[in-house]
């Protein structure tokens, strides 16, 4: 074997080792974060923690029930707003690939995806909180819905793009009107991709703090009125982690772990739905 070939082989294996090393480097911070949060939070979590509201300063114990419920309501309302708009928008973009409106709206969606969450929070503050005269969970939901939209729209569009045109033609050739073709054929066939987009977008906004600071604001008590301020997990973590009290710090750790598990769970569900609902083309 000539030296040149040996040199090449050496170079090749060097690159291989280097990429493996880098891949490892990527994973290490994640593992550290996970371990750290689990170690700090695991001892705080118990049934009591989940079903009680925070105690005032000085009293030990207390839980995050208000934040847990609040998060669910805020995210639920946000999803209610974003899912229909997002899916229909995605369908429009896929159906009218070449129209001028589609081009611009695609561009807008991409820009929206890049808008910092705090900016969206401020916008929601000026659009909703000020005119309505006070902080409210609804305004937080709107801000989060705006953040969900680009993810749902793009994932819907990408999913539908992968469906062969022949499927649509088959439906049209059977004399189906357009709305039935979309609702009965296109959406059911792309359902796994659309669902996973939705779940991912929920996972993405579950931890958003910035837009909620100016909108949902936070609430130390359990509230189910979406026109009033409401607590949520990220807000609770933000507020209590920066406080000087140990009890509150513990609460923040516990809440962090809950939030982390939530996001993890959503990601796993996404993987499962994709597999379970996947339509074999």
């Amino acid at each position, binding site marked *: 074997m000539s030296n040149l070939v040996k040199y090449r082989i050496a170079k090749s294996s060097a690159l291989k080792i280097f990429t493996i090393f880098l891949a490892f480097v990527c994973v290490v911070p994640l593992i550290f974060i996970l371990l750290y949060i689990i170690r700090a939070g695991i001892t705080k979590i118990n049934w009591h923690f989940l079903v009680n509201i925070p105690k005032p300063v000085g009293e030990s114990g207390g839980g995050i029930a208000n934040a847990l419920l609040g998060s669910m309501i805020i995210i639920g309302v946000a999803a209610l707003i974003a899912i229909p708009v997002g899916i229909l928008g995605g369908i429009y973009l896929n159906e009218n690939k*070449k129209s001028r409106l589609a081009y611009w709206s695609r561009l807008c969606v991409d820009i929206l995806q890049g808008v910092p969450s705090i900016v969206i929070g401020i916008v929601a503050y000026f659009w909703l909180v000020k005119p309505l005269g006070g902080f409210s969970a609804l305004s937080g939901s709107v801000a989060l819905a705006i953040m969900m939209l680009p993810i749902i729209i793009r994932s819907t569009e990408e999913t539908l793009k992968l469906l*062969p045109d*022949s*499927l649509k*033609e*088959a*439906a*049209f*050739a*059977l*004399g*189906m*009107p357009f709305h*039935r073709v979309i609702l*009965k*054929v296109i959406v*059911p*066939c792309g*359902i796994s991709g659309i669902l996973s987009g939705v779940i991912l977008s929920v996972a993405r906004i579950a931890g958003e703090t910035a837009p909620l600071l100016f909108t949902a604001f936070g609430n130390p008590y359990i509230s189910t009125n979406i026109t009033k301020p409401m607590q949520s997990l990220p807000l609770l973590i933000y507020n209590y982690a920066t406080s000087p009290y140990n009890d509150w710090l513990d609460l923040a750790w516990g809440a962090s772990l809950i939030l982390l598990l939530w996001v993890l769970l959503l990601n796993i569900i996404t993987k499962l739905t994709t597999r379970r609902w996947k*339509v*074999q*083309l």
Partner: protein
Amino acid sequence: MESTIIRSKNFNAYFGENHVVKNVNIEIPKNHVIAVMGPSGCGKTTYLRCINRMHELIPGATCNGEMVLNDEDVYSMHPIFVRLKIGMVFQRPNPFPNLSIYDNVIAGYKLNGIKLPKGERDKVVEQSLSRAALWKEVKDSLHKKGTFLSGGQQQRLCIARAIAMEPEVLLLDEPTSALDPISTSSVEDLLHELKTNYTLIIVTHNMQQAARVSDRTAFFYMGELVEYDDTKKMFTNPRDNRTQNYITGRFS
């Protein structure tokens, strides 16, 4: 004796500025198999898709001229109604992947929101699958997904799906080009059976197939209908030199 079911007169089709079907005049008799052949890009598929108004679904596609189904102008009927009367089978088998074999056959009813009583449904499914020569092969797995079938079976499923709607005409756009030879011949044999109940128009770039399956053949070249005659006549003694060159493979 034989009645005309589809007649086009001075029919033209365009993609934007592109004139792809030029002044086609053709009369298609009932209960016959008509083959439409020609080199790629000759307008044969476009012409076929004009018959059931699938052409206009493509952005920028237009057409003019007369296209008559049973003395009624196709272009003054509602497109959905036209497509119920003129079924279509495509190049690649395209059963709905989210539906079972059973549901695929009655997809035209089910997805259009037409409710059939259970007994009626079973009858339509069995009859359509039998006509498509698929019943024996799938009768024990009707509730499996249609995409589990082989390519040839899938194509026959698509034919069953189209004939379940009881169309008068069945358009087939290169129905065997994605199939292996055995599946191809099973689909070809089927066409012969089907012509007792339907009129079949089959586009093919395989002239042997045109020769085998059809009663009449139309030859398209550069958007024009060059020759339209009995298949026997066409393949033994074509009138036009271009036809002769095409079927003998001397095309330059």
